[in-house]
C-alpha cells in the first residue's frame, strides 16, 4: 500500500471514556487513526470496548447523560483541511452537524415507521432540504448507492416495515448515505442477517469506500480480514494492535493479537 495515498480523516488521541455511573473507564488511553477511503475494522472479544469506541466517534453516547470523555478525537474539516476536536462540541446543533458528517449503521436494522421514501428523506428533510424534485433525486441516488433501488422503486410509498431484514439494513444504509457523510460507522451491521444478505452488505460496504471512509466493528474475524484495509485489535478497553490488515492476519506483532486471531483465547 502506497504510503503517500494515506490521508487521516480522524485521529483518536489518548481517549478515555467512562459510562454514566461506571466506577472505571471502559476505554483506556485509546490511540487510533482512520484513513480516508479505507475500511478500518475494530475486532476483539466481547466487552473489549470496540462498540464503545465506535460510538464515541459520533458522540452518540451523549444521548445518555453522564458520559465522561478524556483526550481528543480529531476530525478533519474538509473545507479548512484542519483537524478539529469533536469532543469539544457541546451545543445540540453542533452535535447534529457532526452526525450529518459521521453517520452510523446499527446491528439491528432500524427502519422508521414510515414509507420507504420518507425513511430515506428523513435525514435530508432534517438538514433543511425542501424542494420536492431535489429530494426525489437524492432519495433515488441513495437507494441506488445502497443497491436497493430495484427492489424499492415500485413501492416507495409503502411502509418500510414490510421489507426483509437484509433489505431493511440496506435501507438504513441508504438513509445514512443520502446525507453524503464523510465517515460511516458500522456497528456489527451483519450480525442479525443471514449469509446471503451479509454477502450483499459486505459487497456494498466495499463499493462505498470509494466515496466514504468506513469504520466497522465486527465480532467476525473473517469479515474483518475480507473487508478491511486496516484492523484494530482491542482487549479490555485497550488498543492492543493497529496495523494493515494483511500484517495483522499474516504476522501480527503482539502475542495477544496472535492468540486471538488463532482462536487460542479462553
Amino acid at each position, binding site marked *: 500500500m502506497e504510503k503517500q495515498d494515506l490521508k487521516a480523516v480522524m485521529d483518536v488521541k489518548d481517549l478515555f471514556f467512562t459510562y454514566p455511573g461506571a466506577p472505571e473507564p471502559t476505554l483506556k488511553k485509546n490511540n487510533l487513526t482512520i484513513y480516508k477511503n479505507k475500511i478500518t475494522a475494530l475486532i476483539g472479544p466481547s466487552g473489549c470496548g470496540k462498540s464503545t469506541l465506535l460510538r464515541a466517534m459520533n458522540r452518540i453516547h451523549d444521548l445518555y447523560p453522564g458520559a465522561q470523555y478524556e483526550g481528543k478525537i480529531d476530525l478533519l474539516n474538509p473545507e479548512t483541511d484542519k483537524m478539529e476536536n469533536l469532543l469539544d462540541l457541546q451545543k445540540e446543533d453542533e452535535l447534529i452537524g457532526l452526525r450529518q458528517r459521521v453517520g452510523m449503521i446499527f446491528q439491528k436494522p432500524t427502519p422508521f415507521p414510515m414509507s420507504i421514501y420518507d425513511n430515506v428523506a428523513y435525514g435530508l428533510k432534517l438538514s433543511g432540504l425542501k424542494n420536492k424534485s431535489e429530494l426525489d433525486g437524492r432519495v433515488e441516488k441513495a437507494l441506488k448507492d445502497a443497491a436497493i433501488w430495484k427492489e424499492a422503486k415500485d413501492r416507495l410509498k409503502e411502509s418500510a416495515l414490510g421489507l426483509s431484514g437484509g433489505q431493511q439494513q440496506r435501507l438504513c444504509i441508504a438513509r445514512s448515505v443520502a446525507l453524503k457523510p464523510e465517515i460511516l460507522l458500522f456497528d456489527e451491521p451483519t450480525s442479525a442477517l443471514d449469509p446471503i444478505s451479509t454477502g450483499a452488505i459486505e*459487497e456494498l460496504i466495499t463499493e462505498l469506500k470509494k466515496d466514504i471512509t468506513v469504520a466497522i466493528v465486527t465480532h467476525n474475524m*473473517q469479515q474483518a*480480514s*475480507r473487508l478491511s484495509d486496516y484492523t484494530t485489535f482491542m482487549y479490555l478497553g485497550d488498543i492492543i494492535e493497529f496495523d494493515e*490488515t*494483511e500484517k495483522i*492476519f*499474516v504476522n501480527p506483532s503482539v502475542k495477544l493479537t496472535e492468540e486471538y486471531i488463532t482462536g487460542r483465547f479462553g
Partner: protein
Amino acid sequence: MLSKNEEKLVEVRARTVEILEDLTISQKLALQALEVCDSKSFGQVKVPLKSINKKADDIDNLILTVCALYSPEAKDLREMIAFLKITSSLQRIATNEKNYMKNMAICNSESDEEIKRVIKESLSINRCTIKALEYTIEMIHETEDDDKLSELAARINVEYSKTDDIYSMIEKDLLQKMHKDHQVNEEYINLMKYIRKNLKIIDRLEDIVSRLIFARIGGKL
C-alpha cells in the same frame, strides 16, 4: 463480480504461467544453441531463468496472504495449495536447466564428432520437454472442461514416455559403442549422466500435472 478468491486465483495462475513461459523460452534458446553446438550463446539461455526464484517467492507470499485473509475452501483451497507446491517444482526445473547448460559445455566446436552426434540425437528429449511445457501452460488456462484437462495430461504423459524411450535408445547405443571399443569412455558416461539428468525436467512436469488434476478434479495431493 468475481469473488476475492477467484480474483486472486486468476493472478496466481497468470504469474505461474509467466514462469513457465520463461522456462519455455530458455529451453528453446538452449535447443537452438545445442543444434549447432554454439557454446557462445549458452550464456543467453540463462537470462530468462534469472528472475524465476523471485517470481516464485512472490507467488508463495501471495498465496499465503490469500489464505490468511480470504479463507479459501474446496476448489479454491485445493488450487491455492497445489500452486504453492507447483512453484517449488518450477524453481527446481530452473535449477535443472542451469545445470544442464553447464554440463553441455562439452558441446563446442572442438568436441568429438561422435559426441556432437549423440547430443543432437538427445535434442529430441528437449523437443518433448518443450511440448510438455506448452501443454502445461494450456492446462493451467483450462479451467472449464475437465475432459480437455485430462486429455492434456495424457498428452504430457505421452511426451514423458517418449523421452524415456529416446534415452533408452541413446544409452543402448553408447553402451554398444563402448563394448565394441572394449573401453570405458569417460566422456560417454558423463554424457549419459547429463542427458539422464535432463529427464528430470519432464519428470517434474508430471508432478505439476498431477497437482493440477488434484486442484481441478479432486483426489489427494
